[in-house]
């Protein structure tokens, strides 16, 4: 790749297709979505112009250069060269379906005095609204090159590249209305009016309008943004997603289970019995294999998330939630970060950069980890599958899907009072006014959906091969050492006694297998893991947990899904064959020292509720620290969520026992 000749900044309003254009021009795969606020940071790629490559910088969407929120502040700094080198030219993208508001921002960009090319996007959407923007006339009015494009279809990109090449060759500075750009003067109502006046003047001979009937989007929105029907539709959509997670992924999961089982046998069968075989079977295969079988569920979940994001429904759900959120002092602006947190809290917390109000941003950041992220899904599904019957409610709704939906709702239900209390504590005022532009509905793009699903599955598998594998190996080592010779000698003596005293071969084999399990159990009890677990366990006894469950939960502090790998390692070492079907069986068969089952429905519920509310994710805490600028807030999040998870887990356990589920 030849070195970039200069830097071009790609700027525009939110949700006008900047990142779609950026990906099309650079061949990169930055995330896109049909709602405002997807890009909150900047990305750099190489754009090949006829005369050679240039550096293209994709900026977050912004309505103005008068910064209110952290992402807008970033745009201002990048454009003025206060963060990194200043751009040599500008590629401004405007939405043809909303030209006046887009030209307001363009007026500020042109006042920067850089050579500028305008990309006129979404002409098709504009036409569906009865608007036609003449690119040539607009170019003449603005005095800069304007190229009509369709970013998602990659139409007009060659013409855009040629226009930019000529523009930088000429080096002619764009000329805006010449109004103040910085300080209080820029926010003066007279200046704002002046910019809108300029935009209207420029558009006067550029736009032709025609009458159109009620649009499809408007008709659908009457239902989907209705205060009753809209909420009902939201619950229905979520319910359908959870139902599909079970119904669609099960056949693939069974296949993967069989594959892991087959692969495990293939690897282990040539190996002689010994410590290395134990490490591979109980540590690596049981730990990593038990989590890998959940890839189909992750794929189904993100398939739906990608569809909802791309079709335009996310913005509607934010609008719906604004009413509820306003009562808590938050606005619908907090909803999009919280909604993103259902996939992963890290991008959710980063998305709070779109929130201008510092207290609202901090509150949103601190409750975002309460949303059930995809890492919790395997924890829920393995416990639900092992301990809850798959009965049908009303003949068609899977009871397990309902429990899953309830666990997802739990995070939201708890976030509501927590946010309320945090706002009270911070002495924050009423919710700021929330304005959101509802994008038109569109068919989800197959490539966008496929990219999102593959990206998430790849990340899940990468996690299984790195952090989950590492924790599984360490947990295995803690559970396998020390290896006291006296213990092995004692069991060897008992085996010899069985050999001498029992005549029947099947009985001898059964007794031998029972002794093997006892030996593994005793080894685990006397191990470092066992000693540590039994020392700590009194703290978690109110939740009904055995020391092995406690250790698996504590080992998952780096990432929640690690608990599945750790349980796979711990429980397969004391019985079971390690794959997920085996893990479910091993969990159901696990016994305490007194012979009672380790897991009952009450214990499974308390564990699920604990994981729904706990803060077991080092990445999330790290991002809270970085975004809030203080370790104190990360420590506070970890503490309040742990206390909350512990309390709710204990409450659920005792309530379930009282209902006879213990």
């Amino acid at each position, binding site marked *: 790749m030849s070195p970039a000749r200069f830097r071009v900044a790609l700027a525009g309003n939110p949700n006008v297709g900047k990142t779609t254009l950026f990906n099309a021009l650079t061949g990169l795969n930055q995330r896109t979505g049909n709602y405002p606020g997807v890009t909150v940071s900047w990305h750099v790629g190489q754009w090949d112009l006829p005369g050679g490559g240039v550096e293209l910088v994709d900026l977050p969407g912004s309505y103005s250069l008068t910064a209110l929120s952290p992402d807008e502040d970033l745009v201002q700094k990048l454009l003025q060269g206060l963060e990194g080198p200043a751009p040599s030219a500008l590629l401004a993208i405007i939405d043809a379906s909303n030209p006046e508001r887009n030209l307001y921002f363009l007026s500020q960009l042109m006042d920067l005095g850089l050579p500028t090319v305008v990309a006129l996007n979404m002409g098709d959407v504009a036409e569906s609204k009865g608007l036609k923007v003449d690119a040539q006339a607009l170019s003449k009015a603005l005095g800069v090159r304007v190229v009509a494009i369709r970013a998602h279809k990659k139409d007009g990109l060659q013409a855009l590249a040629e226009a930019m090449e000529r523009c930088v060759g000429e080096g002619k500075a764009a000329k805006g209305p010449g109004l103040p750009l910085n300080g209080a003067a820029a926010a003066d109502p007279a200046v704002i009016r002046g910019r809108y006046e300029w935009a209207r003047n420029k558009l006067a001979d550029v736009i032709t309008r025609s009458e159109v009937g009620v649009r499809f989007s408007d008709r659908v929105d009457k239902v989907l943004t209705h205060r009753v029907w809209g909420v009902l539709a939201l619950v229905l959509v979520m319910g359908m997603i959870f139902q599909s997670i079970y119904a669609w992924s099960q056949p693939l999961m069974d296949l993967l289970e069989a594959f892991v089982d087959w692969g495990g046998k293939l690897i282990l069968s040539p190996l002689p019995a010994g410590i290395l075989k134990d490490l591979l079977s109980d540590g690596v295969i049981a730990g990593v294999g038990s989590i890998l079988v959940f890839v189909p569920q992750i794929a189904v979940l993100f398939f739906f998330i990608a569809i909802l994001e791309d079709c335009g429904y996310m913005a509607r759900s934010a609008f719906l939630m604004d009413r509820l959120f306003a009562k808590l002092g938050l606005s619908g602006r907090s909803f999009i970060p919280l909604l993103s947190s259902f*996939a992963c809290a*890290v991008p959710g917390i980063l998305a709070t950069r779109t929130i201008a109000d510092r207290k609202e941003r901090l509150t949103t950041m601190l409750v975002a980890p309460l949303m059930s992220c995809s890492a919790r899904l395997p924890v829920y599904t393995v416990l639900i599958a092992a301990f809850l019957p798959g009965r049908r409610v009303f003949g068609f709704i899977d009871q397990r899907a309902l429990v899953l939906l309830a666990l997802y709702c739990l995070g939201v239900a708890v976030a509501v009072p927590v946010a309320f209390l945090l706002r009270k504590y911070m002495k924050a005022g009423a919710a700021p006014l929330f304005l959101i532009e509802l994008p038109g509905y569109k068919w989800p793009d197959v490539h966008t959906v496929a990219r999102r699903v593959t*990206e998430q599955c790849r990340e899940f598998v990468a996690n299984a091969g790195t*952090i989950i594998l*590492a924790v599984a190996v360490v947990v295995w080592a803690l559970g396998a050492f020390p290896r006291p010779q006296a213990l092995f000698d004692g069991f060897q003596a008992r085996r010899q006694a069985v050999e001498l005293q029992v005549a029947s071969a099947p009985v001898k084999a059964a007794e031998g297998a029972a002794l093997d399990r006892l030996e593994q159990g005793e080894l685990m009890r006397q191990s470092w893991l066992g000693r540590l677990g039994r020392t700590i366990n009194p703290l978690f006894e109110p939740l009904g947990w055995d020391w092995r469950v406690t250790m698996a939960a504590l080992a998952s502090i780096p990432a929640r899904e690690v608990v599945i790998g750790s349980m796979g390692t711990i429980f397969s070492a004391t019985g079971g064959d390690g794959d997920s079907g085996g893990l479910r069986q091993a969990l159901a068969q696990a016994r305490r020292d007194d012979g009672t089952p380790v897991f009952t429905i009450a214990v499974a519920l308390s564990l699920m509720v604990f994981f729904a509310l706990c803060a077991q994710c080092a990445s999330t805490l790290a991002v809270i620290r970085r975004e809030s600028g203080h370790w104190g807030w990360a420590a506070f999040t970890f503490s309040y969520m742990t206390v909350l998870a512990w309390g709710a887990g204990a409450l659920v356990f005792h309530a379930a026992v009282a209902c006879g589920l213990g």
Partner: protein
Amino acid sequence: MRLHPQDIIVFVVVAFAAYYLIRRLAFSAQGHSGGACSKCTCEDKKAD
């Protein structure tokens, strides 16, 4: 006690896993998401 080659392999694997975990947690302590999420910011990816 005589060391078996299997013991050495296991020791190396466990030591590497422990080193990896400590390194990962230390990275988080510096405020990076550690590449745990494909949607992390550009600056995070560079740091990874």
